[in-house]
């Protein structure tokens, strides 16, 4: 079924040229999916690192398990390189909460 423009005067079907242009546009968007997901992962990682930055202050000692976790977060891009791995990292529950355990700050 042809795509349509919604206009003040009703629906107007896409021309052949418009269909081609839209296909190219959507393909470009879909091709960049992995790049966008990696950017999301880096954004979440930055947020998680910021939450424990205070432990790097000179008047406190960062626990070793936090040091290990922070290094794991930093290594996420090099240890996860496929889109399916990105999907695993970005998985969320029905409430929108991240479900991958790598995002959970360890307590011991």
């Amino acid at each position: 079924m042809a795509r349509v423009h919604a206009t003040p005067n009703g629906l107007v079907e896409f021309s052949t040229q418009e269909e081609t242009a839209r296909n190219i546009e959507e393909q470009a968007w879909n091709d960049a999916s992995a790049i966008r997901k990696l950017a999301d992962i880096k954004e979440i990682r930055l947020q998680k690192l910021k939450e424990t930055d205070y432990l790097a202050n000179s008047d406190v000692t960062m626990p070793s398990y936090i040091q290990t976790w922070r290094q794991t977060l930093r290594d996420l891009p090099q240890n996860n390189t496929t889109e399916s791995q990105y999907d695993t990292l970005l998985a969320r529950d029905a409430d929108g909460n991240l479900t991958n355990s790598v995002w959970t700050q360890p307590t011991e």
Partner: protein
Amino acid sequence: MSKSQIVTGGIADDAISEEHLDSTLITGQTAITSLADTDKFLVSDASDSGNLKYVEKQYLPSGGLVKLSTVSTNNSNVTNFTFDEVFSSTYDQYKIIGFISPTTNSVVGRFKFRTGGASGTDYSSSQYVWTHFGHRVDTSHAVGSDIGGYASESYGAISSHSVRETTNGTFQAIDMNVFDPRRNLMSRQTWHGTVNYQNATSDRHFVGTFGGRMNDNVDATGIKFYFSSGDINYGVITIFGVVK
């Protein structure tokens, strides 16, 4: 009873008062659905003892915004909202308000100017310069901000973050101003606005500002709103002209 003509001066000015007016005096006439500037309204002139006079439509006070066009869809998939021949020499400034909801999850809202009048085509040269600044709150109540932008894109962006799809009950709402799309005053267009939406991948809620300009001397006669992929299945967008 035969009809007769009352000669000039044959009836007093106050001979026919309100109690004798036929109640169909107005509704018995032919209706019109649009007004010309020289159409006339009967008025009682307060500055002249209430004497009856007329005023033309062009002299009636009006608002500063004139509604030019609206496009909407309600649970029916369309690929874009297209407004052709909406920008003219009549106005230099336009206000655009509305919302659109995507059929596909994790897409971004965009627009393109249209050229060529009634049978317009997309202006897709890489001459759009835009930036977006979004304030956000995430599901853990943490707040922050994100910035995006591009200096030579083939479209204008409403946001640089993806939007949640319709099935999540969300949409992207905009309040946007477009300046001089027909180059009535200068040789460039510019725009800015505010946007409100739920991000798809992080579930963060964003309220942002966006804006940009054209790097080319394009004569924009229209504008098109769409998502980076998929369709729009709910939404309405209205364009107003700002009276000069």
